[in-house]
């Protein structure tokens, strides 16, 4: 993944993060790196810490890149090969492109009811 300035691509059409907590950058359309907030729950929180975990990623990073970044941390063995993900409180595929300020959650298999 390139660390150079990257123009946002047109397919990046997910809902934007809420303004709350979003870091302001000099320009809206060109960013080199971004910061996301990672949330962990239940057994993932027990293994990796409760979060929220601030994470800096290259522009253009996807939700899957968050998982990759976490694998270097202690306790990451608790994560399955492809944990379920949410971006800004909505279910998201691993390929979902992230934006600065996004909230990315790693969700253990749900067990409500």
């Amino acid at each position, binding site marked *: 993944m390139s660390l150079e300035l990257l123009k946002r691509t047109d397919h990046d059409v997910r809902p934007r993060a809420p303004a709350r907590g979003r870091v302001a950058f000099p320009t809206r359309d060109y960013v080199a790196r971004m910061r996301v907030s990672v949330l962990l*729950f*239940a057994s993932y929180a027990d293994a990796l810490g409760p979060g929220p975990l601030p994470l800096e990623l290259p522009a253009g990073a996807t939700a899957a890149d968050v998982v990759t970044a976490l694998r270097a941390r202690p306790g990451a063995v608790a994560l399955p090969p492809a944990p379920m993900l949410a971006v800004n409180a909505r279910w998201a595929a691993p390929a979902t492109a992230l934006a600065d300020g996004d909230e990315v959650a790693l*969700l*253990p298999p*749900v*067990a*409500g*009811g």
Partner: protein
Amino acid sequence: MTLVSRVAVSAAVSGRLVRTPISGAALLDAVAHETAGAQTAFLGAVRDHNAGRAVTGIDYAAYEPMADAELAAIAAEAAERWPGVRIAIEHRIGTLAVGEISVGIAVAHAHRAPAFDACRFAIEAIKARVPIWKREHYVDGTRAWVDASTAGAAGAPTTGATP
């Protein structure tokens, strides 16, 4: 997100997280209407056992804003799929004792088939996609997150046996 604490359920279509006890009667009252001759309800209560282990209580945790939104979305989807359905959904989080209600769904409709179908749809959707997790307390003092991904696996403190 702010959890609304124990105000009367009033909207004809609602779904939300709560931190306080769930009343099946209150949910039914919320959906009752003079045009709706059929009411159905589902209540999920904490059982005293799971996967062969005695359970003394359960902590319910959630990704709160997302869970609250998903519960509301499930109610809205039910009302869209079965026009005329009135539905109230509540899922409780926090620590519950055996016998306490963790989830409550009430549905009203002019006819019974949509009332049953929407109620069943709602609990299946809740179990499939609302980010809530439960940690069981066992008689020996230990606790463990219920791992729904290995539901039904023998031996593990897990459950396929969620009600």
